[in-house]
């Protein structure tokens, strides 16, 4: 069963007077325990597709299903709830909050759920990504690789079904990138989640179970 499913998704933008079609009848799916890598030149619609999968944006046409439930016409608030419970995000620039410690950054997505205590899970996740001794450090006291590992731990705090990664190794050197990808592969199996990564990185392709190539808003199979 697929975790996320896009059927004939079209996305058009109004850019001034011009109508731009970013995605043209894209059909895509990802299942538990699978890492899918989306590759393609810049401007091919990779980010738009990732935004659709991450429920950050809604399609102009087509259908989006999350765990077999149609979420296409969900309101922004309903989509927020779905992201909160089912989706984890890892960004190229890590996007950690500078005034929070590593543990607090990991807890961030669940911070407002005061009745559920995620502290133990946050500590556990940091230990699993090898940062057990960096828990009270602030982002500026961590290296790029360490920051990305904090970001991965943050993406997993809500026990998501899908982890979305936008150029997760884009700002890291080859070796650090490799350790991050090892980490993701391990977590994919341990947590049985679907990982969808967008990248230019050849290295990332090697780790993928499946590669999807996007050209001019359509998928080349």
């Amino acid at each position: 069963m697929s975790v996320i499913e896009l059927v004939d998704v079209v996305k058009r933008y109004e850019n001034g007077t011009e109508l731009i079609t970013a995605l043209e009848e894209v059909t895509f799916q990802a299942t538990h325990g699978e890492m899918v890598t989306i590759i393609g030149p810049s401007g091919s619609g990779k980010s738009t597709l990732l935004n659709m999968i991450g429920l950050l944006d809604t399609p102009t046409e087509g259908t989006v299903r999350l765990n077999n439930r149609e979420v296409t016409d969900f309101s922004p608030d309903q989509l927020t709830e779905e992201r909160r419970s089912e989706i984890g995000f890892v960004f190229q620039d890590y996007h950690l909050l500078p005034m929070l410690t590593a543990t607090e950054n990991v807890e961030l997505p669940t911070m407002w759920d005061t009745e559920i205590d995620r502290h133990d899970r946050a500590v556990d996740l940091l230990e699993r990504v090898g940062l057990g001794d960096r828990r009270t450090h602030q982002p500026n006291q961590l290296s790029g690789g360490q920051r990305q590992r904090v970001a991965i731990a943050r993406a997993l705090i809500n026990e998501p079904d899908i982890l979305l990664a936008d150029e997760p190794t884009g700002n890291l050197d080859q070796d650090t990138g490799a350790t991050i990808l090892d980490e993701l592969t391990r977590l994919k199996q341990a947590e049985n989640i679907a990982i969808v990564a967008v990248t230019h990185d050849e290295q990332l392709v090697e780790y993928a179970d499946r590669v999807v190539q996007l050209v001019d808003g359509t998928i080349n199979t």
Partner: protein
Amino acid sequence: MNRSNPLRHFPSVLMAWRNLGRNRVRTALATLGILIGVVAIASLGMATAALQQQATADLQGLSNEVTVSAGPDNTNHGLTDDQVTDIRTVTGDATVIPEKTNFTTLSARNGVEAPVSVTALTKADAMYNISRGEISNRLQSGGLISESVARQLNLDIGDPVAYEGQLYRIQGILSSSQGLGGSRRELVLPMSAMANEEQYDSVTVLTTPEQSVETLTTDIESRFNENDEEIIRVRNFAGVQENVDSFLGTLRIGLIGIGSISLVVASVAILNVMLMSTVERKGEIGVLRAVGIRRGEVLRMILTEAAFLGVIGGLLGVVVSAVIGVILFEVLLGSPLEAFNWASAQYLVYGMAFAVIASVVSGLYPAWKAANERPVEALRE
């Protein structure tokens, strides 16, 4: 987050506090603006409270007085014993004090002379306050003298003064603030000092708390004056207190209005600071929204930041205003702690309330804007 941290139950407060700590200079300047606004409102309010209290204290002695004297149509040019008896009948329980007045020149042993007005009366203790010495109902063979005359003639308690060939011993020195006539140069003697004068120059009626000054005034007038004849003239000072109160009320509204302008300016500064900081953090807020933080939670976080600016600025403003208030009350009334009576301390509460309300209102737009930014747009930053 450390489990023992109590703020973990108040995530908006925790996040707001950390965010304000990121740019301390900006936070400090926004807080300073609020502080100045609160000080403007609270200290101007407290100043008018001090003025009002001072005016009330000064006028207190007059607000229950009705003064009766001969009118232009009075052929006797004074009030007779019979008329005084009539006044007593009309005024019931009020204290009626007939007075005779005259002028004389007192001379000191060293030859210095001072012109004074002389008042002869009974019940001096009901009419006068003294700053030193003692005051008795009938004065017997003693007198009271005003501070300025005593100083000029180098007289003190126990010294004799002569009037119409009779010696009187000074029993007390009159308080210098004695209502509107406080600075009069005056010698107060027992009624017997003017026994040879048949008529009274004036009669002072002191009302009881239950009596209305206006009603008594009308009662006395209608008893003596018929048609257009003004046999007697009746005056009261009740209107003075009212006028002063009303004037001070207007003054207070004006001053607090001026103070409020500075708080409005401060809240515009907060609007600016919050807008700048949310625009700067657009990407960060996008991340919050992407990872599932609700719009309401973002809104609360930013409103809490604005409220913090108001609370911190307000509290500091209240402390500064309280110090100013204490100094004002010390200078104007000589009793610094009166600044903390509700009449004056209420402006500290208002200042604080205005600060918090103004800050939160200023935070509304930036918070709303940040919370409703589409995460896709925000992340693109």
